[in-house]
């Protein structure tokens, strides 16, 4: 006899909008109503707030995962397309992966999901797709802005962290949700592509600090203070192209925490031009105070040194700005190391060549921080526009 169940669990039956911190105004956080699964999971009589059912929309004019207040956990997966893939099979791949992402990010199991229960706690899961030059060409488009960066003298790039044809940026406040989405999507990608590299990153857990707090890196620095605010006109002018696309630079920056240990606190602050306490410029008192690059000390030297990171990062040309959204990494040490730590530097900008590269060139030429940091991986991806229900990420490339 057929097996008949009660009606299956529906998606969110009531949706409320939650606003918090810097996410306010984005309208991006959607949570299930109280009648959802979360109520069943809550401890009896408990008041512990649960975040697992918070959902970020997948469909939209831009891809999710960029203006999204950064989730606690991220996995960046670069794939190499297998030889022999053509225009048609590439579309099939992107349809499969878009469908997986559309379901999983909304807390629904993927089609043919062998662990459907792992797909029911999205915790703001997002999947953002990036295209490398080979994929762009296969789709019939020019590689354009997805070309690799020029070489910088500070680089010690290792091929195992470089480039890639297709990037899946998977992020959630729950690492199990990241792992499941990654496994599910790689199962669907396996026939079409192989894994080139995976970079796992983290920030503070959700709820540890107010959302919108600038992250700290493993040097203890407040990292990312000067950043356009998602949703603002300034952000839109820095990040979004007219068609809804953007570009992404991802660089694996090894941080030498052992030699950093040799530096005292004032030396650390001097190298950057910001205090460690709250990230304020050394000429100010609050994190977002404008640095005074002209201010001098009793000896007549500028307080913010000529080679301080924040001085070198800034350009007179306000077009040379980017939106940073990086993560920390901390991998098992090897050999005699006790740490294998660093930063997964991630930036979004309309144009890599016009916005990112000039800034990186200045930092490569001179930046006090270079003494303790080494870029060991580098990749550039076009982040295509979002899609509507029924569509898939990248579809406009094929329509052209």
């Amino acid at each position, binding site marked *: *006899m*057929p*097996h*008949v*169940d009660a*009606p*299956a669990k529906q*998606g969110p039956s009531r949706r409320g909008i939650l606003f918090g911190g810097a996410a306010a105004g984005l309208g991006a956080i959607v949570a299930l109503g109280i009648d959802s699964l979360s109520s069943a999971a809550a401890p009896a009589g408990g008041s512990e707030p649960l975040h697992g059912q918070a959902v970020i929309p997948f469909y939209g004019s831009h891809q999710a995962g960029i203006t999204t207040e950064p989730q606690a956990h991220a996995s960046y997966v670069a794939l*190499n397309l*297998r*030889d*022999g*893939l053509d225009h048609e*099979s590439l*579309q*099939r*791949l992107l*349809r*499969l992966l*878009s*469908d997986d992402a*559309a*379901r999983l990010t*909304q807390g*629904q199991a993927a*089609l*043919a999901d*062998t662990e459907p229960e792992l797909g029911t706690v999205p915790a703001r899961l997002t999947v953002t797709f990036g295209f490398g030059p080979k994929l762009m060409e296969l789709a019939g488009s020019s590689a354009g802005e997805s070309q690799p960066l020029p070489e910088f003298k500070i680089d010690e790039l290792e091929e195992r962290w470089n480039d890639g044809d297709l990037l899946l940026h998977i992020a959630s406040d729950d690492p199990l949700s990241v792992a499941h989405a990654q496994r599910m999507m790689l*199962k*669907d990608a*396996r*026939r*079409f592509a*192989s894994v*080139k590299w995976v970079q796992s990153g983290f920030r503070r857990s959700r709820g540890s600090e107010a959302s919108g707090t600038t992250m700290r890196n493993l040097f203890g620095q407040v990292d990312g203070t000067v950043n356009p605010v998602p949703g603002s006109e300034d952000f839109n002018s820095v990040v979004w192209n007219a068609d809804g696309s953007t570009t992404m630079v991802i660089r694996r920056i090894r941080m030498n925490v052992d030699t950093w240990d040799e530096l005292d606190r004032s030396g650390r602050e001097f190298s950057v031009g910001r205090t460690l306490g709250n990230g304020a410029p050394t000429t100010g008192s609050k994190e977002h105070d404008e640095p005074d690059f002209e201010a001098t000390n009793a000896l007549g030297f500028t307080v913010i040194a000529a080679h301080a990171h924040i001085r070198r990062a800034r350009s007179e040309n306000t077009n040379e700005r980017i939106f940073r959204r990086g993560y920390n990494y901390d991998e098992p040490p090897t050999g005699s190391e006790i740490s294998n730590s660093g930063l997964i530097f991630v930036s979004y900008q309309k144009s890599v060549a016009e916005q990112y590269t000039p800034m990186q060139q200045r930092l490569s030429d001179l930046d006090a921080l270079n003494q303790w940091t080494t870029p060991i991986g580098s990749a550039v991806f076009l982040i295509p526009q979002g*899609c509507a*229900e*029924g*569509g*898939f990420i990248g579809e406009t490339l094929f329509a052209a």
Partner: protein
Amino acid sequence: MKTSFALRTTALSAAALIALAGCAGTPAANSNPAPAGATVTMKDPWVKAIDEGMSAGFGTIRNTGGQDITITSVTSPASSDLELHETVANESGAMVMREKTGGFTIPAHGELHLEPGGSHIMLMDLAEPLKPGSTVNMSLEFSDGTSSETIAPVKDFAGANENYDGSEHEGMDHGEMDKDDSESESAHDH
């Protein structure tokens, strides 16, 4: 929710069905129940990718109507030979698949889950390889002569390798995933 695969279910009139599918079913004449094709939807359909031979289709069939309905057969351009299968224990206790005689009956306001290891739609003598990311059109044919169409994405799936009760079917496991089962014919050395 609608996803990147267009999923739709269309009710066809009995007359149209007969014309299209050559079905000889006679619409039920008593008490004018809503046609099954208008009350049945298939949610989240998918079909296992395979290069040749046979495959299986899965999903959740919902009957939103107030009458029990029976699916008597399924037709598809992908296969000239489709069967409705159930999984049951044989004499020795092993779970085996066999054709569901009389079709699948779905109670009023009920659901039928078609899933690996359980009931499913069997597609035999495939017309061409079922490639992952492509779609398969299927038409569910009901005992009242109506039908409902669905579009099922094709997905790689390592499971659904059930045993069959009877010798006429081989195992379905033609698509064991390994590196050589890639989209490309040529070697890859990334």
